[in-house]
């Protein structure tokens, strides 16, 4: 996690420095592509254990749609915008039998409590379907770069083969777009429960 934080901070610092170069538009409110929807197919990575007792690293396809709520964001002097992001990510986790599992055997403990003394079946391979809903706050740094932060929530359905788990989990993400042209960008997102690398089409 420390390595993740350092990498993110270093990247943000570099992008911030880059925003001061020619082509910068962060101080030009509203100066960014006008789009109705952002369509972002991507490859999704589960870099941390998913919610529940599933485990391991995950990978799979995903799609995010972003609908602009306002092209002039919370900060009047900066070129920011706010969008509603909804999507679907389908991740396959390879599982980790050693670490997380069901309880195989309990024993009675004081005060009518019980203690698990033996792990049962491990959290083997599992499929997890996430449906995130986020607020995407974008800063348009440069004609070729924008960055965003995404707090939100996701419903998830985990399928362990012989069992299922349905729930909700917080979502947090930060990311950036490298714009090949104004309306097409390479988009990288780091966060929880998943990260992604894809291409955005601002339509």
């Amino acid at each position, binding site marked *: *996690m420390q*390595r*993740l934080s350092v*990498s*993110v901070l*270093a*990247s943000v610092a*570099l*992008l911030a*420095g*880059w925003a001061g*170069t*020619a*082509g910068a538009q962060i101080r030009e409110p509203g100066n960014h592509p006008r789009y109705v929807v952002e369509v972002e197919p991507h490859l999704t*990575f589960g*870099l*941390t*254990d998913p*919610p*529940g*007792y*599933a*485990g*391991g690293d995950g990978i799979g396809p995903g799609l995010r749609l972003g609908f602009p709520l306002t092209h002039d964001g919370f900060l009047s002097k900066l070129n920011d915008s706010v969008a509603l992001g909804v999507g679907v990510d389908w991740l396959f986790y390879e599982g*980790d039998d*050693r*670490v*997380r*599992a*069901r*309880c195989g055997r*309990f*024993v009675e*403990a*004081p*005060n*009518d*409590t*019980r*203690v*698990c*003394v*033996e*792990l*049962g079946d491990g959290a083997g391979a599992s499929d997890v379907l996430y449906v995130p809903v986020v607020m995407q706050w974008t800063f348009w740094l*440069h004609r*070729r*770069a924008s960055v965003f932060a995404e707090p939100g929530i996701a419903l998830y359905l*985990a399928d362990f083969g012989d069992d299922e*788990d349905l*729930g*909700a*989990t917080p979502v947090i993400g930060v990311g*950036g777009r*490298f714009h090949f042209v104004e309306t097409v960008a*390479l988009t*990288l997102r*780091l966060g929880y429960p998943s*990260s992604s*690398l894809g291409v955005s089409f601002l339509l």
Partner: protein
Amino acid sequence: MKTTASLLVALAGLLGALACDDDNCEGDECRCHSGDYCYLGCTGPGCDLSCASMPECGGICEDDCRFSCNDVSHCSALCDDDCDIACDRLSSCGAVCGARCNYHCAGADRCGVEVGPESVVDCSGVSSCVVECRGSCTVSCQGVSADQCRVTCADGTTRTTTNGEIQCSD
């Protein structure tokens, strides 16, 4: 050219973060949260396990293990010697641990633990706290329902308190 290079370096940094592997439970924290139930297992000394915000969760570990459980309905811990177990805001927290165990239980309905010699138990703001000591131990209870802090020593004697400290000798 300079700007493109800066961007590529930034993207490389972010991609580097993608290579992180946070799965090792030995020495690092291993955590369960959300979902219906989860039991963590960790071998070797120095494990750091935690459970949060789920109905049922527990951990099994060996020596020098840290285990915390917050906002879980039913929590369970099993560990060997020199463990720290902390349970907060839950319905029940059951544990069995070895020598020199530190067991802390707060904001719970039922706390129950069986500890080895030279252990320290602390129950505060709970409905009931039941401790079985297999050797010397010190049990502190604060804000426990009337006489619901009950300690059974290795010699079979049982004492109760509401606010105070009970000690068992070898």
